[in-house]
């Protein structure tokens, strides 16, 4: 046990995800020996993140203003919406530079065992966005795990009667892997989603 504020800092850092007691102690002593200007900058950013960062009122992505950068960008295609679970997924898809439409962040996936049902996600907000008829395609990009698949199934059943084109991201073999190590479910999906080679 350390004295006063040093122990308090170790305790607070220990609450962060993936940070155990030893790591907390190492980070605390790194902060103690760091340049005071660097520490002040870190403290300022930590305060600002709670004060200045909002969730976009349209798509639910993290934003510095009321609307996020993507929703404000007039060059993005307003007819296509890509539905994702978390803001982190928006960043992952943006890195591909393949998608020029807009996003909708659900805030998680349906997980009955954790008590998360459809009403706990931003599904109502998605339905409101679709009500004006401008959107023609909804891409369901929830995680390719059981909860993500079930969420996509639930949304597809809700959206299809509205006459929208509803698509799901393909799943299959990871680029750079060996076929023999692919699991049965993934390999089965790769077969289902095989495409014609246009050569």
């Amino acid at each position, binding site marked *: 046990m350390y004295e006063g504020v040093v122990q308090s800092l170790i305790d607070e850092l220990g609450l962060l995800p*993936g940070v155990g007691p030893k790591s907390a102690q190492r980070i605390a002593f790194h902060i103690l020996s760091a340049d005071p200007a660097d520490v002040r900058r870190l403290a300022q950013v930590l305060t600002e993140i709670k004060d200045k960062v909002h969730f976009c009122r349209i798509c639910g992505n993290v934003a510095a203003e009321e609307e996020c950068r993507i929703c404000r960008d007039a060059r993005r295609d307003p007819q296509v919406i890509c539905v994702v679970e978390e803001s982190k997924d928006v960043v992952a898809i943006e890195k591909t530079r393949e998608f020029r439409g807009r996003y909708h962040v659900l805030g998680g996936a*349906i997980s*009955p*065992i*954790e*008590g998360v*049902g*459809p*009403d706990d996600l931003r*599904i*109502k907000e998605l*339905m409101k966005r679709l009500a004006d008829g401008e959107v023609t395609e909804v891409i369901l990009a929830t995680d*390719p*795990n*059981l909860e993500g*698949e*079930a969420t996509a*199934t*639930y949304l597809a*059943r*809700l*959206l299809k*009667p*509205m006459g929208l084109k509803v698509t799901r991201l393909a799943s299959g073999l*990871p680029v*750079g*892997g060996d076929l023999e*190590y*692919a*699991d*049965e*479910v*993934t390999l*089965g999906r790769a077969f289902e989603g095989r495409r014609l080679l246009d050569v």
Partner: protein
Amino acid sequence: MSLYRDEGVVLRTQKLGEADRIITILTRRTGRVRAVAKGVRRTKSKFGGRLEPFSHVDVQFHTGRTLDVVTQVEVLHPYGARLAQDYPRYTTGIAMLETAEKLTVGEKEPSLRQFLLLVGGLRTLVENTHEARLILDAYFLRSLAVAGYAPSLDKCARCGSEHIRGFAIVAGGAVCGACRPAGAATPSAESLALMRSLLRGDWAAADVSQSRHRGECSGLVAAYLQWHLEHGIRSLRHVERESDAPSSVPASFGGNPATHPA
């Protein structure tokens, strides 16, 4: 014993650290095991989609100090892939997994009958031969029976009289007029008959039951289960009946409710 191999059904997964998961699995010989699957969340993980809930797998563990570690997995039946395509059956299956976890109290205490019951229940659910809610109620009643909590349905749970006048959860099932405590339910004879059919596995009788008796039976079975478990089944409130497919307008917009509380 540093390495051991077993067959099991994945009940639940929880994120651990950067890329790992804790997998709760009900095995044939070892009972309920909690084990770490290292790196399973990475897209190039050797486990791939094999350790998702509902997966019936052949698995090898390495005994660890606190938690065991999953070293190899082969899929026997990927029930999850089929169930995720059918939302009502998915929510029903999740309620079965949660119940199996709650009914196997101790870790590594073999419970072969609970394992066989769960595998049978999931197979029936995937085969789509009966209404999902009937399968769920049959699973609840039989898993309670295996755990020693079978409700008395033919005779009064207290005195053994055959003149049934109600159903009291605290008494342990059906009760006669003399033993009937205050607040006991008065289900119809058909609903009690449905419960008997589900407990015995008489599907021919259960499949021709009426919707209102199924509803009454479901309510009583869910209340009976949760009272004996001394825990609520969280997923139960999200179980969707097949007849409740939502309209394109969600419940909060004035449409049909998508989920029904038990």
